[in-house]
């Protein structure tokens, strides 16, 4: 009996010791440990993500074939197989078009962009983040903007040698100093997370009420704060209200980038392409601060 109690005591003590050590780990050690685990899992993430995409495409192909067979019962098996192959080729063509579009976007951009494939999303569901398969070894560093051809996606919050985490624009912790193109009014855009249904939305606060905002107005980054370059499209105004104090306008923004289905993002490297001058920051007197608070 005493032996059992002693063993039990040792188990309790060891568990508590490990827990206390984990909870009190210095920040650098915790980052190092996390980085090592992410690095170890990154190849598996990429492998499973690729397999999941291929499985989805195959399922889509097969369901298409099933529909055709249902509609054309007399069609021969050979024709069905050929149609299946055509569909597979169409899937490849779509992927090819998408990649060509992304390549064109990267080439057309004034800034140097690092293309990154999305390999995972936040496993806990507490934050709106995604993990990409490029890291500090490729020049991806924390506090760099992440964009898509449609618009701003978020910013890098951490990077290990071969992976990086991007905090999406839709996360409440992601704050971006923004400007409305039509009237030049400044404000701060922050994420609102995922609603019960419908698309991910953001909110623009602290808009001067003397500059009326209308649904459909285009919102871009202001360039203030140093993280997000100016003039990156964020989204469009969906709804406008006054905030609780009645001093400022508040606008719901629909992000341009489809944040729920991102497969690729580009991390903006601050330095311009060789031989080009950096884009001039916008005039921004009196604009609100608050960009880029970490979660």
């Amino acid at each position: 009996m005493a032996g059992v109690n002693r063993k039990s005591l040792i188990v309790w003590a060891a568990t508590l010791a490990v827990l206390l050590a984990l909870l009190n780990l210095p920040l650098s050690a915790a980052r190092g440990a996390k980085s090592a685990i992410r690095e170890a899992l990154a190849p598996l993430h990429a492998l499973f993500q690729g397999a999941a995409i291929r499985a989805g495409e195959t399922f889509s192909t097969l369901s298409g074939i099933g529909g055709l067979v249902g509609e054309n019962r007399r069609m021969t098996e050979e024709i069905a197989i050929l149609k299946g192959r055509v569909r597979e080729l169409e899937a490849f063509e779509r992927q090819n078009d998408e990649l060509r579009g992304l390549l064109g976007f990267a080439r057309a951009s004034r800034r140097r962009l690092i293309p990154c494939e999305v390999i995972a999303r936040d496993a806990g569901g507490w934050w709106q983040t995604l993990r990409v398969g490029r890291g500090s070894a490729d020049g991806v560093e924390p506090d760099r903007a992440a964009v898509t051809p449609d618009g701003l996606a978020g910013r890098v919050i951490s990077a290990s040698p071969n992976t990086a985490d991007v905090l999406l624009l839709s996360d409440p912790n992601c704050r971006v100093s923004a400007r409305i193109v039509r009237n030049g009014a400044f404000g701060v855009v922050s994420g609102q997370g995922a609603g019960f249904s419908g698309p991910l939305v953001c909110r623009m606060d602290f808009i001067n009420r003397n500059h009326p905002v209308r649904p459909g107005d285009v919102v871009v980054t202001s360039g203030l704060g140093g993280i997000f370059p100016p003039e990156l499209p964020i989204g469009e105004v969906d709804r406008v209200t006054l905030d609780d104090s009645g001093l400022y306008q508040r606008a719901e923004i629909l992000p341009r980038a489809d944040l729920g289905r991102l497969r690729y993002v580009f991390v903006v490297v601050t330095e311009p392409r060789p031989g080009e001058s950096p884009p001039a920051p916008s005039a921004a007197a009196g604009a609100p601060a608050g960009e880029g608070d970490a979660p």
Partner: protein
Amino acid sequence: MNVVALLFLFSAGAVAQALLPTAPWLGQAHAPILLSLSLYYALTRPRAAALAAALAAGVLNDALGPIPLGYSSAGFAAAALAVSRYREEVFVWRHVTHMIFGALSSAGVTLALAALLQATGLVSLAPGQAALKTAGAFVLGAATLPAVYAVGRRIDTMLGLAAPDSTAARAWRSPLR
């Protein structure tokens, strides 16, 4: 062999948890695969092994997101202890027991993490959002643990760590013997 199986299960579970989609009506809760794996060890192993598995699963869970290291380990260890303590109190149909253990553990850990993250200022959740997320975790926990148990059991059987026809936790062949 037991450690190799644990490493394989946890790595695959971590990757699957990060890749599986979630839904707004579940409060963006993810299928708690890593928690379910630690509960599987609590259901089939001695308490010491269950706690070690819970700590390891918690570290993996935290490493996959911005949660500070140790938060999930504490929650997983508490859930594993509770399941280990009550694993003999079963319903006639074993899957119902697993569903209840999975649902309650997942909801409890989610609620505790929400309180902890809110208290430390890392997230700001409205009460409605926290309730929706907890409810989502409850549903997903009930669905995930029986599935994870079946997979874990099959792998243990393949590796000779459990008897093929056994249904009770005591049928497990302990590596400590």
